[in-house]
Structures are given as structure tokens and as C-alpha cells.
């Protein structure tokens, strides 16, 4: 190896080193340590951790709260992801077109993105309050009885889903807007001359061209549906009766309320595997259907 070639290798690694150290320390090491810790017991007092094999996973299989959290998370994800993406796309098409009051619309849709989830969740708690809350006040106008939206296990999760959609749709709108602006306008003009309807054009031209953006947004939406539990901590604390406990919220409870770190590690392994499988699935499934410009 010539000295110049060697210098390139050394310089490259030296430049990467500071970031690499932190990445290994706070991403790769903890990911591996999670797997290892899940095979041990939780150290308590003077008793150190001992190897227990699959015991934590066996306990998990019999833990109804785990299954409920997982089930809730699946419902939560399968409602928030498609609805958020559909709304984001609709917003972007509106804001990209010649609609009255475009600046206001864009601002209104995007504002939730810059507000802390923790702050807006407090406001949503008021909306859902029984009796004097905004939702009940509005429904009261048509004579509906008062309803404890967050306190009822049948409605609580739906309330949280609504908040999540409200928070993220405007954020994803931005990416669709950027992509829409890159579609040459003459495509639309040509289609209009040929007599193609707007919906037809959208379905056959716009939507396929937006596929890479949809993939990007989809990945982010999936991650968000497993990563963000701020609103749950503020609004329901997983209740009533675990009806709104999501996987990460349950990990937080087990790890930092009950301090059962080994069991929390096993739960984290499930979450990591889930994220990995979803990521792989998206790439394999969607990559084939994407039309690059």
C-alpha cells in the first residue's frame, strides 16, 4: 500500500471516529446488550443477575398486559399510518393547487409539527374531558349525553389515535408537497388536453410518481407509531385497564416503574425485532413497485 493510499484510510477513519464512538456506545452496544440482558434475571439488592435462558420470554408469553400492549400497538399503527398518510397527501394536493387561502391552510396543517406533543396532549385532554370538555360541549348541542372519552376502554385508544394523526399529518404533508412541486406541470396540461380526468391523472401519473415519497413517509410513520408514547403518558398512563398501553409505554412502565430491567430488555427485543421485520418488509414489498423519475 502506498503512503498516500494509507493516508486516505487513516484520514477517513479519524474523521469518522468521534461519531462512531458515540454510535457504538448508544446504539449498537445497547442493542446487543438488550439481547444479552433479556437472557438474565434482574439484579435486585445483593442478588446479582443470573443466567435464566428463555425464562423472561416464557413469562412474556403468559403476560396478558404484554399481549394487550402488542395488540393495542397493532391497532394503533394500522389506524394511524394509513389515515395520516392519506390526509397528508390530501393536504399536499390542496396546498399545491390554486386554492383560496393557501398560506393559512399550509400554516394550519403544519403548526402541530412544531408544537411539543407533551404540550398539545394537555390541550387534547381538555377536549376529551367529560361534561365541560369541547367534544362533549359540541355533542351536547345535538343532545348527546356526556361521555368520559379517555376513561372508557372502548374510546380511549381511538382518542389517542386521533391525536397522533393530528400531530403527524402536517409533517408528512411537507414531503408530499416537495415531491408534487417536482412533477413537471406540462404532464398535467398534456393529460388535460387528452381529456383525462383529474382523478384518473392522479391515480395513473401523480400517485406512481410519488411512490418514493410514500415509502419515505411510510417508514417514518411506522417508526413513529412505535416510538412516540408522550401523549399516552400525559393523557391516559396506559389506562383505563391497559386499554391504551402501547409496547414502548409498557417497556417504560416495566423498566422505570417496576424496575424489572431484565423483563424490560426482553420486551425491547420484541420491539426491535418488530421494527427490523417491518423495515425489511417495506423495502422488499415497496421497492419493486416504485417508479423512479
Amino acid at each position: 500500500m502506498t503512503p498516500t493510499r494509507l493516508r486516505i484510510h487513516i484520514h477517513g477513519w479519524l474523521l469518522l471516529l468521534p461519531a462512531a464512538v458515540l454510535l457504538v456506545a448508544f446504539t449498537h452496544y445497547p442493542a446487543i446488550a438488550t439481547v444479552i440482558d433479556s437472557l438474565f434475571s434482574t439484579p435486585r439488592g445483593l442478588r446479582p443477575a443470573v443466567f435464566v435462558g428463555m425464562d423472561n420470554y416464557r413469562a412474556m408469553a403468559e403476560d396478558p398486559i404484554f399481549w394487550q400492549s402488542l395488540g393495542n400497538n397493532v391497532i394503533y399503527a394500522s389506524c394511524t399510518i394509513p389515515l395520516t398518510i392519506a390526509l397528508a397527501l390530501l393536504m399536499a394536493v390542496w396546498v399545491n393547487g390554486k386554492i383560496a387561502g393557501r398560506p393559512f391552510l399550509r400554516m394550519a396543517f403544519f403548526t402541530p409539527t412544531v408544537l411539543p406533543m407533551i404540550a398539545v396532549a394537555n390541550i387534547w385532554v381538555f377536549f376529551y374531558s367529560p361534561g365541560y370538555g369541547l367534544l362533549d360541549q359540541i355533542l351536547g348541542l345535538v343532545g348527546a349525553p356526556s361521555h368520559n372519552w379517555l376513561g372508557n376502554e372502548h374510546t380511549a385508544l381511538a382518542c389517542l389515535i386521533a391525536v397522533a394523526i393530528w400531530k403527524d399529518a402536517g409533517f408528512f404533508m411537507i414531503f408530499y408537497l416537495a415531491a408534487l412541486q417536482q412533477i413537471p406541470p406540462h404532464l398535467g396540461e398534456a393529460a388535460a388536453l387528452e381529456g383525462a380526468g383529474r382523478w384518473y391523472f392522479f391515480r395513473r401519473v401523480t400517485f406512481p410518481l410519488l411512490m418514493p415519497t410514500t415509502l419515505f413517509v411510510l417508514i417514518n410513520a411506522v417508526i413513529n407509531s412505535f416510538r412516540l408514547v408522550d401523549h399516552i403518558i400525559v393523557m391516559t398512563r396506559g389506562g383505563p385497564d391497559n386499554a391504551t398501553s402501547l409496547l414502548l409505554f409498557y417497556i417504560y412502565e416495566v423498566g422505570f416503574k417496576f424496575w424489572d430491567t431484565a423483563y424490560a430488555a426482553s420486551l425491547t427485543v420484541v420491539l426491535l425485532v418488530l421494527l427490523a421485520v417491518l423495515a425489511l418488509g417495506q423495502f422488499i414489498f415497496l421497492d419493486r413497485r416504485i417508479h423512479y423519475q
Partner: protein
Amino acid sequence: MNATRDTGRATAAIETLGAWLLALLWVLPLAYALWAAFHPSAYSAHFALDAPLTLDNFIRAWNAAPFARYFVNTFLLVTMILGAQLVLCTLAAYAFARFAFVGREIAFILVLLQLMIMPDVLIVENYRTMSALGIVDTIPSIGLPYMASAFGIFLLRQIFKTVPRELDEAARIEGAGPLQVLLKVYVPLARPIYIAYGLVSVSYHWNNFLWPLIITNSVNTRPLTVGLQIFASSDQGIDWSVITAATLMTSAPLLIAFLLFQRQFVQSFMRAGIR
């Protein structure tokens, strides 16, 4: 022909109406917060046009919890994270973009792994690491897991790769070393990306909650989000006026910056999202 034009106009009107209804729904929480925060408690769930205006709720909220300290903490946290991210990501992105070192491809994949396995889900092990290091309940412990950001590295690498090699070589011929070339050629050309990344990072960490909640347990380290949650869930009962006032206070800097520099914000978030 006229009939199609009429239906076209009708759909346009319906769409405009729909867009406006949705937009109003979207600003409703903020509108309510403004209403409740600037009116006396008696009007927090009672919407009368003649309700008197007041700043009393803000004063009460400010005095009820150490918000000044929380503001300082959040400010320190956000600055520290952004500063570290800019330096670390710039160096790493430069390496990935312009140095064909051994193991570059594998290293890059290992970096991108963080986009999927984010620090937000590794709370249990990262807490353990922080206690082993003896830095639980310090501001650096909140920021450390986020400083080497795969997202930042990826973004900067993309833009660095578009810098013409001729510029790079010209600077080298004039005797500049790798770091000087980076500072004189690459960094200035990537300015819009730095602004975009900076805005995204600041809003993310200003709003971040779960990890700070776990790793802090004193007034001197708690950021605004955690402070607000403790304030809103403790002895305030359900005084919506004070809670909304505190809510607005904590979001105000970002919200005002967003309203003033809307175009930059939107463009930044856009830039940060494009492949």
C-alpha cells in the same frame, strides 16, 4: 362543455370548503389554548365574546413552577446537542463522501441502522450506561445518545457528494489539508442543509420528552417538556387556564420562530426529507 365546467366549479368549491374545515380543526387546539390562557379561569370552558382579557394565568403559571430554570436547561440542552451534531456529522459525512477508506460501505450501513433503532427505544440499556458512567440527572446525559445522528450524517453526505471535485482539488493544490478543504469548500456550500438540519434538530429536541423524563430527576436538569408535565399533572388540579398558559409559554419560542420564518421552516423540513 358548460356542464363539465359547472361540475368542475362545484367540486372546487366543495374541496375548498373541505380544506378549510380540516384546517380549522387543525388549529382548534392552539386556538383553544390561546382562548383559555388569555381569559380568567371562569371562561376556560365557557366561550363568551365579552370575556375579559388577562395575563394573570401566565403570571400564576410562571410563579407556580421554576419555568425560568427549565427554559435555561432546554436552551443548554438544545445548543449542546446541535453543536455536537454539527461537528460530528460534518466530519463523518466528509469521510463517507470523499475518503474511500477500508470498510466504508459496512460502516455506512452500521450508521444507517440508527435510523431504525433510534435512541428513543433503547431507554433501558442507555439508562444503565448512564448510571455506570455516573452521569444520570445531568444535561449531557440527556443529549449524549443523540449527538452522533445517522440522519445528519446521511443528509450531509448527500450534499457533500454533489460538491465538484475540481473545487476540492484546486484547494488542495493551494496547499490546504483535508480539514481546511472541509471548512473552506464543503461547509460553505452546504449552508442550506445546515440550516435545515439545525431547525429540525432544534424542534425535535425542544419537544423531546420520554428520555429526558427518565434520565432527569431534579429541577436543575429537567427540560421544559418534563417540567411542564410535572406541573400539569401535580397539584394544579384541572385549572385549564393556568395549564394552557404554561403550555403556550413552553411552546412559544418555537411557535413564534415558526410563524416568523414559516417559509424557512417548511423548506428546511422539506430539504431534510428529500432523498
